């Protein structure tokens, strides 16, 4: 059976899209809840209103989409314990100067996220993401996923470099690398 040319083109396009999509899923409301709650277990606990820097790149469609989702989910603020998280969208180029208390790293940035790693280290800002590959690479200290079960992954070197510390008991309940 021979498929019409336009069908073959469509199939090829779909295949290419599937192959180029990053492995990680979109950030969900569940991920965001876990991110917020994980921050309440920091050694120096946050309190009051905290500005969340949603770090993205306009050139990266997944990152931009992620940033939109995060901004929408955080619109009006997310209250977790004593903390009220307020969003501020920050482009990669401006992350070093952003006036924020914590960095939420959008997914799909790959090596572009090196700027976030530098900002996190130099300014001692906790970095948290749903893109676990960024935690494995050490560009971001904390990774979370909420499906199918809640997982929290901490890169100990990145955490140490950014001054992100947790208690002994909490460390026993998470995965560290």
């Amino acid at each position, binding site marked *: 059976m021979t498929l019409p040319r336009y069908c073959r083109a469509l199939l090829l396009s779909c295949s290419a899209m599937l192959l180029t999509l990053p492995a990680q899923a979109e950030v969900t409301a569940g991920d965001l809840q876990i991110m917020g709650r994980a921050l309440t277990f920091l050694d120096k606990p946050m309190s009051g209103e905290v500005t969340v820097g949603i770090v993205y790149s306009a050139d990266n469609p997944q990152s931009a989409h992620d940033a939109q989702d995060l901004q929408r989910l955080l619109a009006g603020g997310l209250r977790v314990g004593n903390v009220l998280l307020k969003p501020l969208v920050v482009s990669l180029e401006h992350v070093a100067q952003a006036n924020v208390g914590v960095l939420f790293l959008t997914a799909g940035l790959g090596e572009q996220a090196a700027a976030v790693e530098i900002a996190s280290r130099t300014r001692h800002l906790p970095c948290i993401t749903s893109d676990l590959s960024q935690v494995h690479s050490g560009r971001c200290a904390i990774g979370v996923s909420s499906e199918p079960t809640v997982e929290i992954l901490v890169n100990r070197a990145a955490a140490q470099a950014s001054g992100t510390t947790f208690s002994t008991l909490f460390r*026993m309940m998470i995965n560290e690398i």
Partner: protein
Amino acid sequence: MPIRIKWPCLLACNCLLGAGALSADAQTMDYGALEQLFGEPVTTSVTGSPQRASQVPAGMEIITADDIRRSGARDIPGVLRHVLGVDVQQWGNDDADVAVRGYNQVQSPRLLVLIDGREVYLHSFDYTAWSALPVELSGIRQIEVVKGPNTALFGFNAVGGVINIITYNPLYDSVNEASLTGGTQSLIQGSLTAGLKADAMAGVRVLAGGYSDHDFSTPQAPQDLGSRDGNLRETANLRGAFVLNDKTQLELEATDSRVRQPDYVITAVTVDENIHTNSVEAVLTNDSAFGVTEARLYRNGTDIVPSSVGLALDINDTTVVAQLQDIFKIGAANSFRLAAEYQHDRIAVTPEGGAELSSQVLAASTMWEWKIRPAATLTNAVRVDRIDYGRDGLVPPDLGLTNAQWNRGFTELSFNSGLVWSLTAADLVRLTAARGVQMPSLAAMGAVLIPLPVPGLFTGGSPFLEPTINLHYEFGWDRRLPLLGAQLALSAYYDSIHDAQAQFGRQIPVSPGLIGGPVNVGDSQSFGLEFSLKGRSGDHWRWGLGYSPQAIKDSFGNNPVSATLTDFEDTAPRHTADGQLGWSGGPWELDGFLHYQSAAYGIRGFSDVNASAALVRIPGYMSADARAAYRLTRRATLALSGQNLLHDQQIQTASSAVERRVLATLSVDY
């Protein structure tokens, strides 16, 4: 390229990462915050370190505060009877014994019970007086049920299982509830849970409650000595938590409870008892570069007066416990717990008086949790207990024993090992093995020494008891079923018990004058399976099904049940099944529970010391509990609940038949 990190660097990293608080200004477990974070209850009852309920290396059930409320129960055994694998024997309206996976005996000695880590199992008496526990249901965050031995963590009383009752923490939780209950059996019950917090630096919480009712009016056996003239319970629990600095917390607790009720006792007859317990406790916790260090010191006092036996019995015990533990993590994959414990018990010999039995325990334990890979964890725990007994004071000349014969000591090793492996995102398997140890209690060693009508003869405890050893092996498989919104859990277990102890043997000469008392009767093996399926459908429905077949084989040789009042093989039902269905919507909350167990036998004692005990057949039965609650206002709820609803009365044990109970409860959150 893999990064090589040297050991000192790991330690340094550990120190840097570890020097912090668990949550805001806190070093102790904030169960509520962690449960919200991980989406499931958390516990420290299996390894001593915090774990998610789904990842513990043991067969475990966690009963949440929601489960407790929806159960409609008015006491803890009433909550536990809905848990598969937990065997509740309801001897009277306010008297029950609880055991895990069979082996339930009168005044069950194999289950360790704690409240917030403090032992409330009366280990000098070998049982738990459930109605005397100084805790209110509305003040409980969760009840953790560990199935199988866990003596490597908790010591030699945790030979068959552990129940750790976790109350709300005055520093983290704000729970204020008052309730009033009235019901059948002339029940009037009041309960109060109240907390007060001063910023995030201090919190105080009070649990207080009491009831009066009468026992079941179903026929008693002629040998029963209980008068049923009015049961009474009064308890109070005051707990404070204080932040001393951003790394250190202090918790202080004082409790008192008084109970008057008929109890089915180790001679398998009912007698009236007055029970008074009290305790004081201090717990200091510090999070430092060396990990989380906890020092715990408490004193338990217990006074039990059986009032209808025609003897001036007054069993008075004092226990002092000091514990020190350190929990720390080295590197990314290895967590440890080091602990040491000292116990001193003292109990007056009754009714003769003039003598005292005592024991001292020194114990050391360690736990190593190795995360082999993110999905697999191996846990090993070992504990060594050294116990030394002694007796001072008068010895009846006819007894044929001297105080020196109580100068005995045992050194026993316990272990718990468990491999937990998440095979897929939906499947988790669990392989565990354990060696549990049950040491003879002071009561069993002779704190009660009753002169018989025949001059020169006594019955009571024996100084010749040996420890009981329980070897336990278990395989478990949990599978999430997202399409059903359910969780399937299967487990298979095998227990081998050596030198099992009979609580009270008759006509067994221990010495020329001592012709009855606890004895080691022999060995016993148990094999069982547990299947459970629990789930939720939509926002409204919750449901659960469970089934457990079990077979026990005793090898008691020349120790017949007629003399030892002990028969595990015939008294454990071969089949038990549980079902539950619940619905919530708007102001309504409706729940129903069914429990089935196949026919088994119970044990009946005789008041005449020369007579024999007998097995009594307990027919298979189905029982139903239910609760319907309606939220009247934002703060007030009216609930109607009941137990044993299918029949006016039903034979469930060898004691009197249980009656239907119906309760109405008005509760107010404030």
